[in-house]
């Protein structure tokens, strides 16, 4: 019998729909999108025209010395020099979560605090540095080229900066990464190994990070920012990419309460399962995701009928949304349950490895503040979605139990069950 309760005790956002909790909450409720026209490669006519843009930051300069960020963040140069663009976002998100959860410098280094991160690394910096090495015939290698560009850069940088002495790890399961990080963070706390785990996801917004997905025709070619990302819609044609960073504190409830931290939600359990079928395409019947949902529900000890809201992974790709639909039908429709299902990627775009922690933070806000975001941009629901409850507007009903889905390359699926906090 598990006695430790794991809660979300802090959130930090740098996203296309806002760089602070209040703005993100307002935009989720009002379904105000963060997607804009975006020129991935100036001077070209690429078929992909939109992205979930990050406002208030400018990381277009090739060197960190030329980057700009919102007032209020003091970033030491010895930290900045090792960061990729999304590391800058992540620094700001982490500073928010540390303040939000009332963490002190002493707690960060007490060995009871861990750090789990995920990003794809920085393909932009990697290209820049590799070109430099190649063009100089090996004579010029920027000192921080490796640690600032490879996957793992977030955990390298922030474990060092904050002096983290607990568990530190990176996750590399593509778009399921930070959901897995939250799941394993939950395990670390319930097993008594750690009292709290900071989970951070981040991604660059650049042609190197996003436009490369056009190679598999996964990106929307719809040039209209208001209609390009339309999960579950009959006319969806691919996902819209976004960058940013989100940080979330998972913590033993007793520890959070003793410190007087705000508690947004309780993480009740999680589950994961792999499709075992394709390197890049989800199983057509969503079998792996259905198993992951079942395991998450079992882990949390709840039934499909008890779930009040599902935050779907649905990225707006024709095949991915269909496979998640099949999985949802297998778990919910088959059990006679019709919880509201929505994908907030219609507002934000798809944050790749960051998506799981970003959308879990959205769920935590909905649980704490009593709302369910609707499906923005959904005009003509795909007939295949029959039986699913897909609200088009925000639901002012306070959910008690929420399921969060994530799926990634290679068929990795991870799901979380969160509950409204009741002390």
């Amino acid at each position, binding site marked *: 019998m598990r006695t430790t309760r794991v809660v979300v005790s802090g959130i930090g956002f740098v996203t296309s729909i806002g760089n602070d909790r209040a703005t993100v909450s307002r935009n989720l409720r009002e379904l105000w999108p963060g997607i804009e026209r975006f020129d991935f490669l100036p001077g070209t006519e690429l078929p992909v025209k939109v992205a979930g843009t990050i406002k208030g930051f400018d990381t277009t*300069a*090739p*060197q*960190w*010395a*030329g*980057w700009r960020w919102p007032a209020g963040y003091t970033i*030491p*140069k*010895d930290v900045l*020099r090792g960061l990729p663009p999304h590391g800058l976002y992540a620094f700001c998100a982490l500073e928010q979560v540390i303040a939000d959860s009332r963490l002190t410098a002493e707690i960060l280094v007490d060995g009871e605090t861990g750090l789990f991160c995920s990003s794809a690394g920085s393909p932009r910096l990697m290209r820049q540095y590799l070109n430099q090495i190649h063009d100089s015939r090996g*004579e*010029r290698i*920027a*000192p*921080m080229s490796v640690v600032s560009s490879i996957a793992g850069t977030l955990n390298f940088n922030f474990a060092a900066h904050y002096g983290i002495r607990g568990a530190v790890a990176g996750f590399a399961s593509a778009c399921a990464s930070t959901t897995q990080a939250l799941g394993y963070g939950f395990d670390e706390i319930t097993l008594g190994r750690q009292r709290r785990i900071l989970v951070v996801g981040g991604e660059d917004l650049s042609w190197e990070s996003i436009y490369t997905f056009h190679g598999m025709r996964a990106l929307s070619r719809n040039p209209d920012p208001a209609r390009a990302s339309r999960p579950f819609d009959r006319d969806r044609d691919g996902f819209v990419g976004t960058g940013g960073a989100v940080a979330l504190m998972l913590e033993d409830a007793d520890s959070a309460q003793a410190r007087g931290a705000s508690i947004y939600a309780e993480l009740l359990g999680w589950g994961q399962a792999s499709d075992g079928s394709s390197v890049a395409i989800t199983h057509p019947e969503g079998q792996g995701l259905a198993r992951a949902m079942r395991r998450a529900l079992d882990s949390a000890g709840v039934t499909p009928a008890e779930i009040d809201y599902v935050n779907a992974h649905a990225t707006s790709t024709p095949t991915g949304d269909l496979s998640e639909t099949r999985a949802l039908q297998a778990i919910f429709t088959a059990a006679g349950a019709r919880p509201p299902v929505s994908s907030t990627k219609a507002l934000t775009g798809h944050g790749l490895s960051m998506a799981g922690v970003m959308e879990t933070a959205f769920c935590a806000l909905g649980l704490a503040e009593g709302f369910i975001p609707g499906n923005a941009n959904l005009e003509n629901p795909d007939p295949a979605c029959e039986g699913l409850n897909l609200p088009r507007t925000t639901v002012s009903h306070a959910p008690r139990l929420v399921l969060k889905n994530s799926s990634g390359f290679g068929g990795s699926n991870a799901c979380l069950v969160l509950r409204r906090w009741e002390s």
Partner: protein
Amino acid sequence: MTITPAEAQMSATEKLNGFPPAVTESYLAFAESGEASRLDHVVLGVLQFYLAQPPPQPLVELPGTTRLVEDLGCDSLTMVDTLFLAESLFNIRLADDELARVSTLDDLRGHFQRHIMGQAEMTA
């Protein structure tokens, strides 16, 4: 001279974006004049910008015997960052084993003057 004024203009736009204007001004002035004092302001200005803790006064005003590690808290990565950028700005290549001999501000000045101007006697 290792760079022309036109090359320096392009290089400054690309590589000194975000640096204090005085560093850029000194860099462009050095490309025009070749004056050693301008070179000092570039090299020490870059190092000062990279230092995690600001020095008590501008590096160009500190004694040449000021030690990089002990007095300024300059770690090895900051040193390599400084040298890497300076190599790129002046289109030179510094041998790795020479870096080990750079321990004071005068060492740093002299190092670049020798490589860029070929005038070891100009070391302050």
